[in-house]
């Protein structure tokens, strides 16, 4: 590989979110000269603003996700605040039925899940109340601190000699002879032998001039956080239409509910406002954990995530330009990131993922998608 001069790298990664940083870290672990370009500060978008869940049973990367998370602090050399297990609390019969059905699905994948009755769930979740009808105890998965994890990837990458250039938005991919040869940014042009595009909502617009159509619909989602509560033995508690966790500091951080479809320009979201939805989130947290209803909400925030038409990731090494690997995680990127990075590393270096079949995550599945697919689903900004 030739791109190791200062103005480039063997592999350039566009996007310093969890997916791009993990991919770069995995590549650096294999001795590859890698450069990550980010439009701003690493992990500043959805990678650092999500619920921190790490339990993606639906993914082909699930087993690798479960294998890697318990090792990540040690592998990275920095804390991610990862903790295993989750408890899902139902306060309506429908929720209980849904959670128990999910438990059966997890069981079929070979993982332990216990179904808990009302007494058991109240005992397991000290902040739950008399309204808890039951729930499930998931002995895999868990949660980590997104903000700390993003920085851990970035620092671990640097410790291996990888480079990160912040405030360097990719403005154009320079292609020649069926390959992308360089990435243009306001801070210079960076040559590459191979390219990884993990630029979140901006990925589609970046690839479009190359004739690659990556259908994405960005949306804004919101979370709230309270002051700290006494630590529960398992912090990964959610349910009642919420995702989230008790942080290791004790804060209750939860999100869920309706999202707002939007358009995002090539430089990313201009603003990430939260809305009065925080009152609906507060209601659901107070219902989920009645013994915490007195806790004060101290912040809300929003993040912008992109979704593919079927809600599933695209993780694909393109055929043209053939040195480009694309990854968009369709709203579930954080938890899978240890495994996603590994898969991208394999695709970049070996052309095929060594540990999972990714065929159903290829971009080709959208080849016949109508141009107006967002309108057809109503996945467009409110008028």
């Amino acid at each position, binding site marked *: 590989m030739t791109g190791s001069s200062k103005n480039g790298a063997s592999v350039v990664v566009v996007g310093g979110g969890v997916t791009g940083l993990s991919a770069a870290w995995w590549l650096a672990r294999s001795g590859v000269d890698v450069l990550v370009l980010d439009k701003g500060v690493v992990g500043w978008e959805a990678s650092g603003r999500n619920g921190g869940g790490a339990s993606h049973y639906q993914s082909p990367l699930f087993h690798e996700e479960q294998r890697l998370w318990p090792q990540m602090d040690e592998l990275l050399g920095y804390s991610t605040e990862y903790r295993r297990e989750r408890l899902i609390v139902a306060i309506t019969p429908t929720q209980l039925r849904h959670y128990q059905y999910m438990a059966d699905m997890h069981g079929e994948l070979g993982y332990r899940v216990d179904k808990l009755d009302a007494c058991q769930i109240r005992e397991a979740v000290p902040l739950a109340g008399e309204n808890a009808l039951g729930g499930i105890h998931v002995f895999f998965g868990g949660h980590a601190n997104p903000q700390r994890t993003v920085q851990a990837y970035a620092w671990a990458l640097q410790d291996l000699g990888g480079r990160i250039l912040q405030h360097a938005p990719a403005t154009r991919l320079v292609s020649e002879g069926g390959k992308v040869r360089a990435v243009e940014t306001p801070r210079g042009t960076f040559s590459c032998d191979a390219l990884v595009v993990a630029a979140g909502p901006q990925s589609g617009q970046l690839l479009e001039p190359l004739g690659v159509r990556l259908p994405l619909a960005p949306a804004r989602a919101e979370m709230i956080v309270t002051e700290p509560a006494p630590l529960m033995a398992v912090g990964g508690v959610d349910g009642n239409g919420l995702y989230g966790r008790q942080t290791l500091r004790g804060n209750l951080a939860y999100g869920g509910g309706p999202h707002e479809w939007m358009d995002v320009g090539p430089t990313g979201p201009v603003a990430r406002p939260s809305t009065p939805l925080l009152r*609906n989130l507060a209601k659901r947290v107070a219902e989920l954990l009645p013994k915490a209803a007195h806790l004060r909400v101290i912040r809300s925030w929003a993040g912008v995530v992109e979704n593919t038409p079927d809600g599933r990731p695209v993780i694909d090494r393109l055929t043209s330009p053939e040195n480009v690997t694309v990854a968009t995680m369709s709203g579930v990127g954080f938890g899978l990131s240890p495994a996603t990075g590994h898969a991208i590393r394999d695709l970049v270096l070996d052309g095929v993922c060594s540990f999972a079949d990714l065929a159903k995550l290829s971009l080709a599945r959208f080849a016949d998608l109508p141009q107006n697919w967002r309108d057809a689903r109503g996945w467009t900004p409110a008028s």
Partner: protein
Amino acid sequence: MTEPVRDPHAIDGKFPAPESMAQIVVIGAGPAGLAAALDCARAGAQVLLVDENPVSASLMADDAPLYFGQRMTGAVQTKARMIEQVFAANPGLEEAFELGIDVALGAYAWGGFLNGEGVRALPGPVVGLADEDHSWMVGFERLIVASGARDLALGFPGWDQPGVMGANGLHALLTTYDAFAGRRIVILGSGDLALSTALLALARGLEVGAIVETRDAPQGSADLTAQAAAAGLEILTGHVIARAEGGINGVERVWLAPVAGGADRVIDCDTVCLAIGLVPAIELLDVLGAKLALDRGRGGHVPVLTEEVRTSRPEVFVAGDVAGLGLSVDAAKAQGRMAARAALESLGIAATPATPSNTTVPAPADALAYQTDWVRALLRQGDGSVIVCQCEEVTREALLAVRQPAYLGPPSNSMGVRDLRSLAIDGPINQDQIKRLTRACMGVCQARRCREQVALTLAVAADVPVETIPLAGYRAPVRPLPLKVLAAWDEAAAMSSGWDVWFGIPTQWTPYADIGTDREGRHAEILGGDMHL
């Protein structure tokens, strides 16, 4: 033509109309806000005037919205008595009632929301209000934010104990509340804020143990300096507070050290009042998405004004300290009237012509240079163990080492070599990024006691102008309110029925092996999109 398809789980159409509407909402019944509300009402507009006083004892205990330093008397526990006192202290409220203004006292304005960048789904402009029991939304056509200023806190050894407070907190306890529990005060700073605080304290029969100025000369106006001298107040220039010590009830004495070196003076006192500066209370403006800029002459981050008193959000006007520090009370009232006139005219309502008055600020001093001088002097007192963020117990040393919080145990070897300098190599210092790593400014006081101090400390430590450090953003709710108070217990039916834990895309959650099989449809049928884990 067919109706456009809408995603049933998207937010548009899910917010109910607000509980009530007001043509003009004014936040803050200080001199500027009250003047604005009165003029709006006189012109015939329908006005809601919101003021959070009397704030609850529990908020006061969290040093919100002002830095009260636990020096409240027990009287603040009695809400009814406090409401009477707030009325007695602010005679203009009587006039507001007489003019038919809807006055909401003890109501917290915790958020303000407008459609714009990133949000288009709101039914219209709304403010979020709350009392001690519940929260509600009020729609508005125009908003006048006159939220005043809050206290600037700067740490020193022993500042994390009862009895250390801010100048506005002290003013509020002495005047609005008549509920100050201290007797003998040491005042830090010698500008007009500090001198007027000292004179007020004397007038209320309190003792002033010392006025401490780190610069070589007093910083106040000639007039106030003369008044202070006439009252027998001495300004100890070229000094800095070295430490405060005390017992279970907080401060009992302080050590004052000459900046140039030499013997400390020890002074008995029960209160240390930080009167080095104030901070425009821009929380709501930031949440509203109004453009802000750091202005050294106006006391910190202030709204960028498109017209005299109009922010970058055309529905939102400002008056008083929130627009920039330095106005006299009369000038603040005049600015309130200007805001009223501008808001009324933008609604097509004729306003009574304002009597011309001078709202120009005397040549503004560089407030940030003064604050920075204090930070430099204070950083020389005590060691790295001095707390910067009280809520999260982040020390100076931990902040500058960008160290992970104590609950994560000792840092790894790799973590041990990371610090502010190594982070600065990767890009300009970003306070929000450092907040996420160290937890400094992430606590229940919502960074009221540490936001500015952390920015100034980072700027001094990294030797960069404080302007290069982006404002650590404010988010709703801008008052720390309980889940059960903020909760929308009467949630709209559309919100309940359209709720999904994530995006409500059933195919997103199909186990990989089941994609394209019969089982996929069965999962979706049974679970809908409710399959997130």
